[in-house]
């Protein structure tokens, strides 16, 4: 993946397992966001391919509709909370009754029940991120791509978001790819971890293995917070 003359991602070969929480960690500017955007078809790789359930991805909208990308700073439509959360269902042509039921469930999961009629742009930062979460999960995506979902939040909201991530995986078996540089968060919720530094995926392993016995000096330095970048 090349932007201008800068190679942002280099020969990445990665398999994400169904139903796992995979944490993609690395310093700011390491290429985490670009990688998620690539998976969600906002960027195209110069070479290589993306496979979904073993199939080469073609027909972007059909594959894209089976996943969801949550941005670090959520973009909020100038509408009510209900209409924001219902958006993904509406564009899929789902009937009104089902939309009401699913939106209500999603708002319940993120702890925003009763706020459906509120103007979404009046929510606090933490509430807005949780609303964006509800909007991303309301249509039961098979894959949830999360780009630093707690980067701008206070500890209480960080805990709430982490609880939501764990709950969604448990109840819906959603595959979750979490891009973050928050190491304690990775310890708390990830199953497997990939370390991305300067666009290079230098190591992939289970959480326990990678924290106990990092296979690369750069991984060790980053995980211990000793990497200067």
């Amino acid at each position, binding site marked *: 993946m090349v932007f201008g003359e800068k190679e942002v991602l280099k020969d990445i070969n990665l398999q994400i397992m169904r139903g796992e929480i995979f944490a993609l960690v690395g310093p700011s500017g390491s290429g985490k966001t670009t990688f998620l955007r690539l998976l*969600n078809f906002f960027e195209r790789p110069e070479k290589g391919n993306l496979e979904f359930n073993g199939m080469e991805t073609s027909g972007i909208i059909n594959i894209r509709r089976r996943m969801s990308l949550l941005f670090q700073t959520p*973009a909020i439509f100038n509408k009510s909370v209900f209409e924001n959360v219902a*958006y993904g269902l509406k564009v899929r042509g789902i009937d009104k009754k089902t939309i009401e039921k699913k939106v209500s469930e999603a708002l319940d999961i993120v702890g925003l029940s009763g706020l459906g009629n509120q103007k979404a742009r009046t929510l606090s930062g933490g509430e807005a991120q949780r609303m964006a979460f509800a909007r991303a999960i309301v249509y039961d995506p098979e894959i949830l791509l999360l780009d630093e979902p707690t980067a701008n939040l206070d500890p209480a909201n960080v805990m709430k978001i982490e609880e939501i991530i764990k709950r969604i995986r448990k109840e819906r078996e959603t595959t979750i790819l979490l891009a973050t540089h928050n190491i304690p968060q990775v310890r708390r919720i990830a199953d497997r971890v990939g370390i991305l530094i300067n666009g290079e995926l230098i190591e992939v392993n289970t959480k326990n293995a990678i924290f106990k016995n990092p296979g690369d000096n750069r991984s060790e330095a980053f995980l211990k917070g000793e990497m200067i970048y």
Partner: protein
Amino acid sequence: MSSADFLVHGLIKAFELIFSLNPYILSITGVSIKVSGTATILAALTAIPLSFALAFLNFRGKQAVITLINTGMGLPPVFVGLFIFVMLVPAGPLGFADIIFTPSAMILAQYILVTPIITGISLSAIKAVPKSIIETVYTLGGSRKDAIIAALSEARFGIITAILAGLGRALSEVGAILIVGGNIAETGSIGGIGEGLSKTRTLTTAITSETSKGGDFSTPIALGIILITLNLSVNLLANYFQRRD
């Protein structure tokens, strides 16, 4: 009569003309609203799709169209009037249409003046919609059509403001409609003022002709009060929508 008396007398008589619903004044106001309103509606129907095409599509000559629109936003009305006049006179290329000195010619002139204004302001409003909103539409499974609808929804107050700015410009414009409309009223006089009912006489063109007559200024003052009230109402509406944005 002192200068203060002269003004007060003019104002009192002007309000009398307005509140007595003088047919001459009413017919002029009606022509103004009809011409500027129709021109603004037609311009909006062209400008809004055009601004979306410019925001969302890539095509050859796009930059040239944007330059043309930016130039059009500051077009001198008398130039537009002259251009349309030359096109519509019997010897002109569009002379067969036989609409010179009719409200249709005035609508055409104002359409040309107002379309770039609504397009330019709408385009700015659409471009101000954050890219992240459009990307959110796509990531939630929306199509390009959904993205355009979302942009329209997000930019709606800006687009309404653009239409109102166009209407304000049309209502206060005088040069173009004076040339192509001819400022015509029926012969005769109604209620002791002006001439007969307006054919192509608007608030602005009537103010120029009534003022140049000299003597009693109550008629142009009455027309001016109505014009300012209309423009103020349009601006208040525009402010309301800007605040809601």
